[in-house]
């Protein structure tokens, strides 16, 4: 009974800030648990078995009391709020003449991962009756006004979003820019990656065409058809909170390492019989070397820099290299090369060894030239060093 009274009456007791909310929870736990002296009495009077039994009983009581009190508090508060907010017609007039809905469906909360939180844990300050007066310009202003409340608990992820391309849009006043709740939901908030395909669906809310392209890619197909745990979903490449601008130079230059995170990992690639040599062979060839030096052009430019993984393999439409639709499939390769090397002849693609180390079968000329220098360099240089040493030795002997 006392618990409810907290919220109904006393403006002096009800807190103004979230720290006060924490204190309040503390009080409730204390009130419902047995007083410590009772435990002491039980322990001193009874025998060992009884003592143990009593201890267990007390522990169970304490547990029960604390858990029910926390959950009870949340749902009791929700009860109080829903006295008004269960009304579908509850709205708030905004400055531009629009009206914001204040209606909340109770069932939404039941499925939420936050079902044990109180309304006022997120809607801080609304435990006063009447609610403090607030003014919103428009619907967007109204919706974003609560965006900051997530950081109270999720501070790390919140700060990450400040570096994101989404926050950049928001800061420039884009009303469609996603905030926490646009991706995660609000009252019906659920685990974002269960199942993993849920992530792609979330991004698809705004990025529909890209999501459809992804669904047809080798990664997307494996995810959607087989629920494959190894293929990347959107956030594995783009990150979830600190999503970078995918057109920025810094991001582009980081993509080979990004692809390499999986494609150079023997554990992951072994399952599918894929080579982990792809990153190494790329880096040691022309394009990769250029990329590893930071690419061409000025560091501040956002222009194409050099062929990166995605320039040949595609981005969201990455296909199996053995599939005849893949841009790196042998028959399509010259067309892919011509994207950057317009005059390339049919011979030209063979200048790239397709991520293979040169061997007698794959690239005999390259293999033999390599072998020749592997033998001749130690022979010549070693011979000359030997002559130097002999010369020095003879000079010493002569003295």
């Amino acid at each position, binding site marked *: 009974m006392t618990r409810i009274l907290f919220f109904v009456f006393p403006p002096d007791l009800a807190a103004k800030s979230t720290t006060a909310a924490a204190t309040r929870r503390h009080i409730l736990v204390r009130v419902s648990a047995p007083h410590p002296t009772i435990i002491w009495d039980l322990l001193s009077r009874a025998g060992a078995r009884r003592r143990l039994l009593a201890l267990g009983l007390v522990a169970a009581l304490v547990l029960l009391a604390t858990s029910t009190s926390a959950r009870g508090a949340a749902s009791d508060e929700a009860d109080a709020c829903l006295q008004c907010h269960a009304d579908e017609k509850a709205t708030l007039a905004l400055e531009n003449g629009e009206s914001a809905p204040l209606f909340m469906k109770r069932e939404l909360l039941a499925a939420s991962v936050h079902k044990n939180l109180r309304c006022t844990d997120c809607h801080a300050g609304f435990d006063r009756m009447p609610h403090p007066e607030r003014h919103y310009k428009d619907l967007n202003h109204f919706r974003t006004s609560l965006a900051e409340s997530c950081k109270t608990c999720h501070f790390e992820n919140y700060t990450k979003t400040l570096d994101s391309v989404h926050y950049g849009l928001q800061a420039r006043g884009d009303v469609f820019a996603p905030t926490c709740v646009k991706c995660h939901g609000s009252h019906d908030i659920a685990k974002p990656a269960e199942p993993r395909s849920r992530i792609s669906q979330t991004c698809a809310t705004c990025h529909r065409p890209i999501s459809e392209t992804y669904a047809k890619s080798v990664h997307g197909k494996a995810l959607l058809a087989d629920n494959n745990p190894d293929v990347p979903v959107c956030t594995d490449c783009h990150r979830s909170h600190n999503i970078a601008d995918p057109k920025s130079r810094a991001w582009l230059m980081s993509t080979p390492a990004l692809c390499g995170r999986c494609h150079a990992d023997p554990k992951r690639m072994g399952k599918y019989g894929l080579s982990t040599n792809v990153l190494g062979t790329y*880096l*040691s*060839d*022309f394009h990769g*070397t*250029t990329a*590893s*030096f*930071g*690419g*061409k*052009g*000025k*560091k501040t430019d956002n222009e194409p820099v050099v062929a990166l993984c995605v320039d040949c393999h595609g981005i969201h439409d990455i296909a199996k290299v053995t599939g005849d639709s893949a841009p790196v499939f042998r028959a399509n390769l010259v067309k892919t090369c011509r994207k950057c*090397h317009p*005059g*390339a*002849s049919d*011979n*030209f*693609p*063979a*200048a*790239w*060894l397709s991520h293979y180390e*040169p061997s007698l079968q794959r*690239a*005999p*000329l*390259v293999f033999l*030239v*390599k072998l020749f*220098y592997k033998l*001749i*360099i130690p022979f*010549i*240089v070693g011979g*000359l*060093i030997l*002559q*130097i040493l*002999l*010369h*020095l*030795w*003879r*000079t010493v*002997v*002569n003295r």
Partner: protein
Amino acid sequence: MTHNNDDVVRFGPRDRVEHLLVMVIFFLLALTGLPQKFHDSAISRNIVDVLGGIAQVRYLHRMTGVLFAGMTFLHLATVLGAVATGRSSLSMVPGIKDFRDAITTLRYYLRISDVRAQFDRFDYKEKFEYWGIVFGGLIMIGTGFALLYPIAVTRRLPGQIIPAAKVAHGSEGLMAFLVVILWHIYNVVFAPEIFPGSTTIFTGKISRERMRHEHPLEYARMFPEEANEILGQKDPSRE
């Protein structure tokens, strides 16, 4: 050390300028080329950053390479022209004597014999270096051309030429670098009888005494009055 009136002219202005140019070009090519070969190392990163990024480094490397190619062809053309018109001796052409000299020298180093080879205008080490830089240079020019114009080169030739040229260019360049750093620098700077370095290639002058010691056959032709004395002795001028 040496008195001017004791000096003999060994290299003309043309040789000296050519050496100076090759020296600068070689240094620039190595500086801009080796970081591309060893792109993984931190030093390479620093060099490329200091020079203003990979695009600049490649531009510098290519321009210097074109300069080197021009110099090489000019040199070969003038030498061949001079040989054809009989204005040049064939003193740089290796012969059977050079192999014999090398063996004699090795036997001397190993103390199998105390006989020292007597060299003419160029000893076998100098000839080895000269032909090394000519043939190595031609390989570098050819493979460098393929790497600079891969599209044009693969219009007629198989694509595999390009990665093969890349391997050859990098390896040949590394070998040239090592030979110069170890062998050439030892022979003209650090060898005990030369230290702290010979200036002959820059001034063109060599002391009569060094000339007599290092190139006795040529010296004997220059000073016929001393010929008998020099050519008669087996282990000359050991103080």
